[in-house]
């Protein structure tokens, strides 16, 4: 028994259509006879008989569309001298063996993001990469990045052009970065992983001057690299019985560097006023019931209103540029198990008290569980820090850049209040502004603080819908 299969009539043919059988079942057929007309993707061709015998069965009739290789009929081979043919059931199209395909290189895995957010701060002053860059001496303090630079690092950190550009924009020292690209190359995502959402203004890159002798470029073309502030402090040497020493968490190291830099670089000045919050304090329960609000929320509301009247307090200074923020991103310092975090309510300027309460609640929860998104940490234009629950009379916080002002909310304590020419017992809360003197002057601060006082001492106006 010989199988007649749908023939492959052209290289591209996948299936064919039987236009018409030219012989009927039971007919004698001979080698070379035309069995049927078959239509391929290109043309109509004749299906040739390759084995003499009797057409015993037609499996697919006229008009059938059949895949190449499938049986369409049978021929009983002639008994005389013919052996039963062993045929393969299907014809696979000859395999195209492709040229050895290289596996696409596995994308290097990004370093796992740290659970605690990293707020955007300049960690080191920006470095202009010199053409033959030497890695600056590794600082004695532990490097803030996930992996410390290898001692005696190669003179040339392998980094992709994009990584170099990003590193320069963000002021990151390539020598401190561990690369995850092929061959240990630093690639863009290695830089991005270090300081998400941070963007330092890009400087025009300078290359070496035309004169290039055997020596490296003269010192003046390479910017001076400021040592880390930590280096100026004597190291603390301890013995085992004196103290237990553990490595600080990455998050803590980052914060340490951040606040050190903020204090080191920004010229702080402080201005304090006592706010008579007797009336607000008296309405505590009511406010809690109606809005879910605490005094701190009211301070935030007051700050937003005051900022709208004093937009010059909603600006930042950075390397010769004044950043005039279009909205108010209200930063709120949140105390978490892993230290202080600033959660940011973006575009808070139009929020009502209820909205402030709700947003704050959500952010605090996220902050405490380490789930703030980069957006929720990005660019607080004004920061509020409250220690009200701790009976603190007054404190002067370190400014949280890019905010030019950080507002410290102390506790509302029982205190004598002057009313006319009488002294009464009331509740007094001290508000302190820590101000960036590069962009905020005393007058601005005083006016702003005055507005805050006025609002907080006029609760009706404060709580009025506007």
């Amino acid at each position, binding site marked *: 028994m010989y199988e007649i299969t749908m023939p492959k009539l052209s290289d591209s043919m996948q299936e064919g259509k039987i236009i018409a059988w030219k012989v009927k079942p039971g007919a004698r057929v001979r080698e070379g006879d035309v069995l049927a007309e078959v239509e391929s993707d290109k043309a109509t061709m004749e299906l040739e008989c390759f084995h003499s015998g009797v057409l015993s069965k037609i499996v697919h009739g006229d008009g059938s569309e059949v895949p190449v290789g499938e049986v369409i009929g049978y021929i009983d081979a002639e008994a005389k001298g013919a052996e039963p043919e062993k045929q393969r059931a299907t014809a696979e199209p000859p395999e195209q063996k492709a040229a050895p395909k290289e596996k696409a290189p596995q994308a290097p895995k990004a370093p796992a993001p740290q659970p605690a957010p990293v707020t955007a701060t300049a960690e080191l002053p920006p470095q202009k990469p010199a*053409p033959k860059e030497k890695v600056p001496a590794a600082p004695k303090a532990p490097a803030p990045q996930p992996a410390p630079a290898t001692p005696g690092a190669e003179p040339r950190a*392998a*980094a992709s052009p994009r990584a170099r550009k990003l590193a320069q924009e963000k002021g990151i020292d390539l020598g401190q970065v561990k690369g995850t690209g092929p061959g240990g190359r630093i690639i863009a995502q290695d830089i991005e992983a270090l300081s998400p959402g941070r963007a330092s203004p890009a400087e025009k890159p*300078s*290359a*070496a001057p*035309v*004169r*290039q002798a055997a020596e490296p470029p003269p010192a003046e073309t390479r910017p001076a690299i400021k040592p880390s502030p930590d280096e100026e402090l004597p190291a603390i040497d301890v013995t085992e019985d004196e103290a237990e020493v553990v490595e600080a968490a990455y998050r803590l190291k980052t914060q340490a560097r951040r606040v050190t830099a903020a204090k080191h670089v920004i010229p702080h000045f402080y201005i304090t006023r006592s706010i008579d919050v007797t009336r607000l304090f008296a309405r505590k329960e009511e406010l809690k019931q109606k809005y879910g609000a605490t005094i701190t929320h009211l301070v935030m509301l007051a700050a937003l209103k005051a900022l709208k009247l004093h937009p010059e307090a909603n600006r930042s200074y950075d390397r010769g540029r004044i950043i005039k923020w279009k909205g108010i991103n209200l930063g709120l310092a949140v105390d978490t198990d892993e230290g202080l975090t600033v959660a940011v309510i973006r575009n808070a300027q139009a929020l009502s008290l209820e909205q402030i309460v709700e947003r704050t609640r959500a952010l605090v929860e996220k902050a405490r569980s380490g789930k703030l998104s980069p957006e929720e940490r990005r660019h607080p234009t004004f920061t509020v820090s409250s220690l009200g629950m701790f009976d603190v009379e007054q404190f002067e916080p370190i400014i949280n850049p890019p905010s030019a002002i950080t507002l410290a909310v102390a506790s509302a304590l029982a205190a004598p209040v002057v009313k006319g020419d009488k002294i009464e017992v009331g509740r007094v809360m001290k508000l302190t502004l820590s101000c960036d003197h590069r962009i905020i002057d005393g007058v601005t601060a005083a006016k702003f603080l005055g507005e805050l006082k006025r609002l907080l001492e006029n609760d009706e106006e404060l709580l009025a819908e506007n």
Partner: protein
Amino acid sequence: MAIISYRDAINQALFEEMKRDPSVIVFGEDVALYEGSFKVTRGLLKEFGAKRVFDTPISEAAIVGMAIGLAMDGMRPVPELMTVNFAYLAMDQILNHMALMRYMFGGQVKLPITIRMPGGGGHQLGSQHSHSLEVHFVHTPGLKVVYPATPADAKALLKAAVRDDNPVIFLEHEGLYNLQGEVPDGLDAAVIGQAAVLREGRDVTLIGYGAMTHVALQAAEQLAQEKIEAEVIDLRTLRPWDVKTVTESVARTHRAVVVEEPPPHCGIGAEVAANICEQVFDELDAPVGRVSGADVPLPYARELEQACIPHAEDVIRAVKKMFSV
């Protein structure tokens, strides 16, 4: 040691190889009686006779096809195509027969053919006579392509090409025929696939071949006066080209410029740049530069034509751009 011209160096190589191996035969248009339109085959007919040195009709395709048949029967043909521009007529035989027959027939044939062809522009010969065709050959697996820049290399590389059992395209530059150079006595065959560092430097690597090697050298001299030390590499072989020498150099200098006479599209410059990028990416301080010919058919007018061909100033400009502030 003698000082001879590029032309005479090739001529010497032909003489020596034909003496050394009786299966070497030379043929082409006007190569025998006329002694070659560029006189490269001078004296060969007289020395070796009409069976080994003969003229053909103007039939480039058949010249190459004939070389293939001769080679299949054990000869070592060294045909000449009068200029590279006429190679177009033989492209089917070169690229679609000669280059692939060994592979296609499963290794059953070897074709020890060397096709000599001069090319290059700059002599007001018009667009149809001024091509640099190396790219077409270099692109094709199965061929080897060499392009000497000096008389010594011309001689050594031709000897190597003739002795190579593979089809070799031996490119000559018409403008270099009169170039004088030192050629050591008893110079032996070169190694195909080796570039030469003609000048050492630490600031940038200039890569050239053929006539452009000399342009690169001129540029290097002038750059040195401005305290930029250029390393100059003459590729010498275009396929297979010496990736190692070039990338090792760039790893030291961190900058590279390729100088090529034809237009840049998919040319030697692109090939070299891609390889540099792949091999020594992290050593680059600047993208690889290419100084190439203008992307037009070469015009007849003298100054217009010169504007199409790279000169030392173009190379210098490209190098300086890599150092600009």
